[in-house]
């Protein structure tokens, strides 16, 4: 059986997150010291070699992303994506609440690699208590002098899910409506205030101190070769233990739900699990032996996403849940592009009709076609991923829809 393995949560509950001294005693800021003894090119090469892939959902190679920042750029920025708006996800909050200094150290390591003097943490507005904790941690790091000439500022998000998308997040830090930008140019070339900017997720940054300290080979050997390391998962819904865990990426969904989660609540039968947050696909029992790494999830039409694991027991009404999710996307669509603004509205309308017992087979066909178009033509990931819960449930749980259709 797979055991928990803690890298980013190694200090959780072992140190006082309010005390930088505790963090320093566990070897804190030694990774940054080592990083600063390396050339920028060597540091980027090392991170690239570790094959650390972004933990915010898209799983892009972290070192490769950093290498897009022009080496001769005078002003560059490091931005931490702590928007964490994906329903069912609270892992970044846990990582920061248990060990805020580790995030600051990770950002400073990135700062050295891309020659940035300024970092921003974009923290969701719903976490004002974490914003306060971060500001205290930054004050302590500053007075200890551990960050050197690298400064970090916290900015608050405003409860818009789309602001988790990196270019919308940049717009938001600039003080605007959080609408995604057309790409290219990518933020690595032109980001915050038009300057080269690296945007990474909290968990991605939190991995860096240990990777630098222990070396790329150490990290690359943990978990699945193509998506190495661990992943912090949050278990929600009808699972006995609604906990957070950190496991190597070779752990299977069955292990996650039944070994760590203690199985379905009250000994009920399993029906489905949605992995990766509310835009993730629904997975039936027969695919539970898939491991959680990004590529294995992809191969079954699902996504690892943020690592949210939402379990549903046999009594749950899939159509009703997917209708709620469709409403989420309708509300959160920023409206900038037509296929998403109109598409999420229509999906929600049709899902509501079906859920009320007034839908037809034609509705299902139309929605399937619409979803496939949206996946291809929406401007950002919000619109592109929004049909996934509909399309995967139509694939694996079609009988639940058919049961609700108007008999014509």
């Amino acid at each position, binding site marked *: 059986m797979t055991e928990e393995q803690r890298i980013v949560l190694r200090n959780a509950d072992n140190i006082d997150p309010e005390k930088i001294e505790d963090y320093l005693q566990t070897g804190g800021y030694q990774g940054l010291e080592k990083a600063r003894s390396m050339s920028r090119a060597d540091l980027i090469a090392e991170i690239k070699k570790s094959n650390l892939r972004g933990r915010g959902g898209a799983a892009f190679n972290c070192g490769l992303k950093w290498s897009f920042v022009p080496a001769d750029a005078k002003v560059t920025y490091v931005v931490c994506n702590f928007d*964490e*708006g*994906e*329903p*069912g*996800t*609270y892992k970044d*909050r846990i990582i920061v609440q248990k060990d805020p200094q580790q995030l600051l150290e990770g950002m400073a390591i990135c700062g050295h690699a891309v020659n940035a003097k300024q970092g921003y943490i974009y923290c*969701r*507005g*719903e*976490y*004002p*208590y974490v914003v306060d904790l971060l500001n205290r941690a930054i004050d302590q790091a500053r007075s200890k002098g551990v960050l050197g000439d690298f400064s970090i500022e916290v*900015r*608050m*998000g*405003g*409860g*818009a*899910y789309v602001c988790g998308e990196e270019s919308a997040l940049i717009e*938001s*830090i*600039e*003080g*605007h*409506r*959080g609408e995604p930008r057309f790409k290219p140019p990518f933020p690595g070339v032109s980001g915050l*205030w038009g300057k080269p900017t690296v945007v990474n997720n909290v968990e991605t940054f939190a991995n860096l101190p240990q990777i630098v300290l222990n070396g790329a080979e150490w990290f690359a050997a943990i978990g699945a070769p193509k998506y190495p390391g661990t992943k912090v998962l*949050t278990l*929600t*819904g*009808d699972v006995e233990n*609604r*906990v*957070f865990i950190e496991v190597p990426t070779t752990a299977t969904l069955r292990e996650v739900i039944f070994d760590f989660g203690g199985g379905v609540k009250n000994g009920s039968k399993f029906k489905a699990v*949605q992995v990766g947050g*509310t835009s993730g696909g629904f997975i039936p029992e027969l695919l539970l032996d898939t491991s959680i790494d990004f590529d294995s999830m992809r191969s079954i039409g699902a996504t690892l996403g943020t690592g*949210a694991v*939402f379990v*549903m027991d046999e009594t*749950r009404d899939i159509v009703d*849940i997917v209708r*709620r*999710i469709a409403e*989420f996307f309708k*509300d*959160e669509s*920023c409206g900038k592009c037509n296929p998403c603004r109109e598409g999420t509205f229509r999906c929600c309308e049709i899902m509501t009709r079906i859920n009320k017992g007034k839908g037809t087979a034609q509705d299902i066909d139309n929605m399937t076609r619409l979803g496939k178009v949206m996946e291809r033509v929406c401007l950002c990931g919000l619109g592109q991923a929004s049909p996934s819960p509909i399309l995967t449930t139509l694939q694996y749980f079609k009988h639940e829809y058919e049961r609700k259709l108007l008999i014509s």
Partner: protein
Amino acid sequence: MAEYKQILNKYKDLPGGLLEAYHAVQKEYNYIPEEAVREAAAVFGIPASKAFGAATFYSYLKVGKRGKYIIRICESAPCHIAGAAEVIAVLERELGIKMGETTADGKFTLEFTECVGQCQATPVITINSVPYVDIKPAQVPAVLAQCK
């Protein structure tokens, strides 16, 4: 209470400071007064349409008066299946208002929200951003009674 003019001026020179200024005003007032948005346009040197555009884009920010206690109920899928609807029903009954409304005495406002990142113990409500997790309909009267 700090005047919104003073608050806005504090953020005048901060790059991208408009949203930080809005957060600071809302922290003080519990909402953003409409006049504060017009004032922000003047302070930051932007058209009023831009100032309103930004203020109204974000669900966590609210232009226009609301109650002393803002109760938000998460309706995202994990809270939805955990019985958010029953919690909403009791809140509406106890306060005599519908979701989105404020009580006549200006004490309570009820709002929907999506996930607030406390999904380890659903359903979840927040009162002035403080989370109350694993909330049972029967607990609602006692929770409301704590709001003085």
